[in-house]
């Protein structure tokens, strides 16, 4: 996922959607709770638009004005790959710290 300066908010959005569809405000709240990160409204929608354009998320049909989004299969796979890489990095880093 090469999303430039939107890489970090995009990751938080994908993590937020991993346990089910959410609308924009719910994603912001979730990111604040899970990662203690505040995603601004402009940044959130810039990242959402990029993720939607890449086919990693999609809107869920809804009667509400607040549009929910969910992960697509390719979005779930991309998130899985990314988190696996991060886990490997974390494990390596912690092992090396432990070895000192």
């Amino acid at each position: 996922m090469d999303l430039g300066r939107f890489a970090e908010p995009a990751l938080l959005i994908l993590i937020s959607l991993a346990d089910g569809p959410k609308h924009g405000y719910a994603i912001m709240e979730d990111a604040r709770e899970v990662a203690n990160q505040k995603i601004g409204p402009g940044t959130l929608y810039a990242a959402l638009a990029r993720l939607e354009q890449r086919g990693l998320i999609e809107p869920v049909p809804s009667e509400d004005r607040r549009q929910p989004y969910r992960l697509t299969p390719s979005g779930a796979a991309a998130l899985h790959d990314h988190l696996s890489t991060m886990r490997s990095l974390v494990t390596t880093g912690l092992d090396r710290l432990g070895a000192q």
Partner: protein
Amino acid sequence: MNATWMLNLYPQDWRMRYGDEFGAMLEQQDASFADLLDIAFGAVDAHLRPELSGAAPVRSTAPAFWRASAFWQRLLVVHAGLYVLGCIVLLLINLATTPTNLWFLYPLWGWGIALAVQSGLTFRWKGLFGADLATYLMLNVGLVAIDLTHGAAGWSIWPVASLGILLLAHGLLAFGNINLFQAHALLTALAGIELIVVGIVAGDLGIPLRTIPFALLLVGAHYLLRYRRANLFRVHLVAFVAGGALLALENLADGPPWWFVYPVVAWSVLVAAHAVVHARLVRFDDDSASGQVMASFTARSRTVQVSQQRHIQGLFVHAFLFGVGVIDLAVLNLLTTPRLPWMLWPAGAWAALLAAHAGFVFLPRHRLLGADLAGGVAGSLALLLIDATTPSGPWAIWPIMGWALLFTLHAALALAPRFRLLATHFTVGLVLSVELVIVDLITPGGPWFFWPVLGLNLLLVLHLALTAIFNTHARRWLRAF
């Protein structure tokens, strides 16, 4: 604070796709000042990346012929429409102001020539022959009309004949009746006859006598290349010797001053460059000097290596030309005005260009930055040298400071992609502060540098603080410390 009004900052396509849900989200929360800034940056991003709005393209309601036309055809139709409109407007102004003098025909004629050229380029007929023909007709109809309405002196025969010869050769070539050499020879023969006629009419055969030998020399060179398969460098060398001799003969016929030296010297530089390439002093294989320089690039792909090697070979040719050119300039300077070292100016400028070329070649990841740095440093040294050796100084510090500021801007933009704005502000602010102090020290009055430098640095601190607060990467970077 309700921030839904900020939706208006976004482009229409974006609002059509996301506006409703974005507004609903904004209604759910009180926006802080940081949120307002974030929305504003989001709007800028949406304007810069319109493809992200995913809006379906608006279906054109234009007529079918218009939609089917290529861009250049549409441009021609617009131009023709403007031309007709311009005709009417100018005619009305002409009739309303000076009805006895129809001056409006002149701008319309000039504009019509431009329109004819555009028509020929848009609807190609036998390559560029259509454009040539349209331009010829438009130009000469006007010239003949002016000639006939201003005393019918008959001068319009010359442009009609001269350009007609060109058009004839172009037409025969375009329709495949003759080859390029035959077109060249025909053109030379007809132009030569015309020049002789002009000389007879004007009572001065000097013009054909001076020009026809050079034209024949070019035809001879073309013949040797085409039909004798002669070596290009040898033909060039023969043409140089013969051309130089013709120039010297003309100069001898006129007597001093000996102006023929200048074109001969300039031509000799070109011949020398050709000799370098011909003698394969710059070789296109890996054993050459440039191939050895390429050893540092062996880890890179073969395509990149070859491309870089050609860059280095081009630089060698340029360096050789520079050496020959500077020697020529020095000789000319000594022969003409030994007390005034004017050759320092072209030599200095050329040295800066050569250094820029070297910077371009040897910094393959940032070629333009390398050219800027090397060219700027060499140019600055050349300016300092000239400044030191000429009486009216010192002045070199001013262009050098200007370049330093621009280079800093260039480097920050090229090297700091993540914090581009901050890096630009920081480095340019720093260099500008130093330069303001220098200007204050070397000019009378003052000291006054304190206030602008303080203002610049306060702005910088404010920018740093805003970045630390609002930029995600900066926050993460700061946390790491």
